[in-house]
């Protein structure tokens, strides 16, 4: 699993940080910050949820 984020589109809702805090954070501007591009298996469900909950489509989860 790979994760990419689009900080330009991010609206700072924080859903990703709330659901997968080991993988996502928010910088000082509140914008998404990717902590791990290739999350551990144990975070996989939370990362998928983060991708699906992101209201601005800034979090993309690639299953490869």
């Amino acid at each position: 699993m790979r994760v990419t984020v689009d900080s330009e589109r991010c609206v700072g809702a924080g859903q990703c940080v709330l659901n997968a805090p080991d993988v996502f954070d928010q910088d000082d501007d509140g914008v998404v910050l990717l902590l791990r591009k290739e999350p551990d298996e144990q975070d996989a469900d939370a990362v998928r949820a983060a991708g699906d909950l992101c209201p601005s489509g800034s979090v993309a989860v690639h299953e490869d």
Partner: protein
Amino acid sequence: MTTSTGPTVVDFPFRTPEEPLPLSQYASHRQQPGLVQTHLPNGVPVWLVTRHEDVRAVLTHPKISANPDNEGFPNVGETMGVPKQDQIPGWFVGLDSPEHDRFRKVLIPEFTVRRVRELRPAVERTVDERIDAMLAGGNTADLVNDFALPVPSLVISSLLGVPAADRDFFESRTRTLVAIRTSTDEQRATATRQLLRYINRLIVIKDKWRGDDLISRLLSTGQLSHEELSGVLLLLLIAGHETTANNIGLGVVTLLSNPQWIGSDRVVEELLRLHSVADMVALRVAVDDVEIAGQPIRKGEGIVPLIAAANHDTEVFGCPHAFDPERSERRHVAFGYGVHQCLGQNLVRVEMEIAYRRLFERIPTLELAVPMEELAFKYDGILFGLHELPVRW
């Protein structure tokens, strides 16, 4: 109006005391091909969106606008629409990208998950003070007016940096704004003017003497004019007040009916979904010819995405009317979706969690003081909630 080829036309979804939440008609609307059409109280036809997938599609569509200045924007009526005075600089829920984004980007740092975590002690203090006041008043209370409404108002005022001495004034004016049954349109307009005047004075003061508060920090960014800033602050206040209060009040009722869940933090997300207090708030208009669920929508036609309908869509949520904090599906749209999704959502989550936890920890014998059937629900408001909630212990 209905023809064999045209869209199905349905009654405007007014809440009634006979109907459970959400309206049962939403389920049948979802079965119709495309979208169903209804007429606003002012007679104008609009599209109702009731499927989860379609509500998300509407709220992220680049050619569907949240700006009430656009021709055809749904005006849902005297007491249910976006009030005229809301059309002030800084009222950025009514702006589209990219104009909207300038305001949102300045505010995001104030509502990050980390910042909201730092606010927890202040929220807990506010909640405890309100419980102290209820306990000091005897063994009965109106949980809406004595707790659910003051808590978010006091949290917002402390966040903004409203001096402690002014918080009662601030709270009483915000209370007038939401008292749709006991205040007149004129009283609400006066309260709005007084709040705006107060906010403007506060901005001038904070501009001279900066402190560690939201207003001072927003001033320091230099991104917003004073006029825009006052609109933004009024928006934060109004958007975060009654919505949160209604969630707290309704949540307590649901928890009292499901006491096995009292004390669990898992309830917050499910209560947000179940009650969907802001059913008809995310109004939109097409600014080009578009298509949603195969339904052609022409430029200038109004669209009403129904949040409660999406959150009770059986395609996404099994047994949607059941209160089930263990459900794994978290895709509710109680905070909306797209770039306008609630900025303060993480603060709301914290307020709800702390409110329920402290209430039941400190008043374990809390119970309704009237039968469930006698509770006064807000069938007549923009938001769903309770007018009052008599409790005893």
